[in-house]
């Protein structure tokens, strides 16, 4: 008898539950009050901006008058949503390693840097989807992290399949 890899579809055929098979699918959401971001900007100024946002994020936020707090609120929500999705709240991360990139067509996506990128990769998260919105005094963001089930998880699932004796 020889060992072979166990792809996801094969696990599904073997009645592994969707929850087990797609354990690398994670969602995070965060909601931020724009006026509170405005208050933080007034209270802490550059310390607040430079601690949380990349240079490009600040350039974009400041490019249109009166949009700064709203844009930074949405970006802060996006960073927090990713931290929730990947469950990094007890890891300790630099918010600037989570960057919202504004594309020429208007869409936004997340780009991870440094330690956060390494953590996401080690967790098997290969792609993250971002949606941001704002209305009135609130800005929110949803992040969905998509990933191949980590190799370690594949091994665990493979053992479960063997244990229940499905052939």
């Amino acid at each position: 008898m020889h060992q072979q890899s166990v792809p996801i579809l094969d696990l599904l055929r073997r009645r592994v539950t969707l929850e087990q098979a797609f354990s690398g699918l994670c969602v995070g959401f965060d909601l931020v009050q724009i006026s509170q971001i405005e208050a933080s900007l007034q209270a802490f100024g550059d310390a607040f901006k430079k601690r949380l946002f990349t240079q490009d994020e600040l350039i974009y936020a400041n490019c249109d008058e009166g949009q700064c707090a709203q844009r930074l609120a949405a970006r802060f929500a996006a960073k927090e949503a990713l931290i929730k999705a990947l469950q990094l709240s007890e890891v300790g991360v630099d918010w600037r390693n989570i960057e919202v990139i504004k594309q020429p067509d208007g869409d936004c996506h997340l780009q991870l840097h440094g330690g956060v990128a390494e953590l996401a990769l080690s967790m098997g998260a290969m792609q993250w989807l971002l949606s941001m919105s704002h209305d009135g005094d609130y800005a929110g963001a949803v992040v969905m992290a998509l990933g191949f089930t980590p190799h370690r998880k594949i091994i665990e699932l493979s053992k479960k399949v063997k244990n229940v004796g499905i052939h």
Partner: protein
Amino acid sequence: MLESIELKIRDVLRDHGRLNQDIEHIDMQTDLYKSGMTSHASVNVMLALEGVFDIEFPDNFLKRSVFGSIDSIRRAVTELHAVS
């Protein structure tokens, strides 16, 4: 010394924590997040603490649990103050 640190932390939380109850009713172990502090408010608290104590929170201190109670904040401030 410890009492002085605690009082300063309480002042910061009163001004920036956005807590849903008076700081006088919060004891050392009370969960600040359950008392209304948001993730954004915890950033404000962190920045205010850095100013008050002349310290800087490194990345590995930027955890939810570090800002979870007055006691955990006091331990972090004491540790950072000792090395600064």
